[in-house]
């Protein structure tokens, strides 16, 4: 089974899973927070935040990658700061691939969570407050469970995006085997290599299988959540 793919290709699969996992893990709480702020709070700069979050969706991915390179590269303002103060480096490493995937998937996460937040009846949250729940408890015990379907949808989208992001990743962190060469980058390289088509097809099939499995899993969870709330 294991020799179905070459070690280099397995490396790409493992790397893709790792990149998608960390991109999802970090954008989940941040995405919920930003979605909550956009849906519920009125503040100066709200529209600016909204546009910024959605930029990666409408800009060419290469531009997003370029901006990440400028900001988070070793000599970029943010990258340099993180490098010298925390020893965190994004340049030409898998962490950079995760960052690029996370940024590209962020609008999907925020939109999914925000849509379900806007469907939550604020009168239920009021009821919780009259029963003694403070703001944070209202969020944890009422709001969060009610937006679970949106969170699941956002998580799956982010994970799928993490598995498949190409443009921003290759621009930001290049195509380095074992570091930044995720499945799509590996497929791209194989297609440019004479005789690589068969291996490219195998990787493509594998990435379809992973994406489909993630989708099926999320559907199952969403159905269970809906059944629990008596709507199924």
């Amino acid at each position, binding site marked *: 089974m294991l020799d179905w793919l070459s070690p280099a290709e397995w490396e790409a699969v493992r790397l893709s899973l790792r990149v998608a996992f960390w991109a999802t893990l970090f954008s989940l709480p941040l995405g919920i927070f930003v979605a909550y702020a956009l849906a519920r709070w009125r503040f100066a700069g709200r529209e600016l935040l909204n546009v910024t979050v959605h930029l990666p969706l409408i800009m060419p991915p290469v531009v997003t990658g370029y901006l990440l390179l400028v900001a988070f590269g070793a000599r970029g303002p943010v990258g340099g700061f993180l490098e010298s103060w925390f020893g965190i480096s994004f340049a030409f490493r898998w962490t950079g691939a995760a960052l690029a995937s996370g940024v590209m998937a962020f609008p999907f996460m925020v939109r999914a969570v925000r849509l379900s937040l806007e469907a939550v009846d604020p009168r239920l949250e009021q*009821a*919780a407050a009259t029963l*003694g729940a403070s703001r944070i408890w209202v969020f944890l015990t009422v709001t969060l469970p009610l937006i679970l379907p949106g969170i699941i949808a956002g998580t799956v989208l982010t994970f799928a995006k993490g598995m498949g992001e190409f443009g921003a990743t290759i621009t930001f962190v290049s195509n380095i085997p074992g570091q930044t060469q995720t499945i799509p980058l590996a497929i791209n390289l194989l297609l440019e290599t004479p005789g690589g088509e068969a291996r490219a097809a195998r990787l493509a099939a594998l990435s379809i299988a992973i994406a489909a499995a993630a989708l099926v899993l999320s559907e199952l969870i969403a159905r269970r959540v809906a059944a629990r709330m008596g709507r199924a």
Partner: protein
Amino acid sequence: MTLSVRLRHRLGAFALDAEFMAPPGLTVLFGRSGSGKTTIVNAVAGLLMPDEGRIVAGDRTLLDTKRGIRLKSHRRRLGYIFQEGRLFPHLTVRQNLAYGAWFAPRHAPRENRDRVVELLGIGSLLDRRPGALSGGEKQRVAIGRALLSAPRLILADEPLAALDEARKAEILPYFERLRDEVSIPILYVSHSATEVARLATTIVALDAGRVVAQGPAAEMLADPAVLPTGAREAGAVVQARVAHHHADGLTELDAGGTPLFLPRVGAPPGDTLRVRISAHDVILARQRPDGLSALNILPGVVQELRPGAGPGTIVALETPAGRLLARITRRSAEALRLEPGSQVHAIIKTVSVAPLDIGGGGAGVEAAGPNGMSHDGTSVRPR
């Protein structure tokens, strides 16, 4: 514990300027829609911050804008029963009931959960989710959830308005039991004459954001000068004891020594009931009529006549059963030469008393005293 409320709030063209006291028992905030009832309840609950005001529940100040006290909703400990229930759809009935109790302070006096479950008859629903409950069941669970949060005060905002007649009849007795068996004061918003008559121990009548009258329920309902429900829906509440269930489907009540026949009621002999007798169901006669199909003929003395804007007039009379109101035409009043002191007979058709107007419990009615005429100028306070 007494709740005292003083509020000023402006919302567009609507101005609220109200002051009232809710003593222990069930206080009904009564008025048309738009009179400011819900605004007041939301201000008491902390869901709305009024421009100015002071709300004190017992020894706890919930709001005092002058002293800068604005307690957050979750720190007020009030059990709010909403019109639409507002149960948490992701939690079971059991978890909904436990929700408020979980946030209540450890030492707060609490109701026993099993007792509340039994009182509301929701024992068989505990493992269901709100999506699988009927409207009436949801509202019973909502009552239980509020009750179990160890509240200082229970607020209810038209809790029956979203239900059909049958469901209303199902829920009303639970509020009566709440009033009679639980010592927590209740502030209840309603615009239904039936609910006021059955539930209120105190009435605060609102109109256009102002308190137009407040006082003990029996006095307020029988006073033609107040008529919180309006002339059309006027009706007095009499207290009567179940004497006997007859085989022909009638129940005989003992109302101050006079028999009062009603369609069969469920209460066993010996129980005390509150019966609302609608003013337009009472006919007056100068002589005791003979050969009449109506079973209930009560002798009485006219106390007061209050002509209305239309052709009608409201007559208040004192009978052995208590104070009654009759709505007759001015023409009839003149033909019968009615004036305070006139001897009359009040005729009430047995079947005209609606089942919804017969309620359990006697709380509040006795507050008016045997003649229901304890006016001392403070109970009714027009502003």
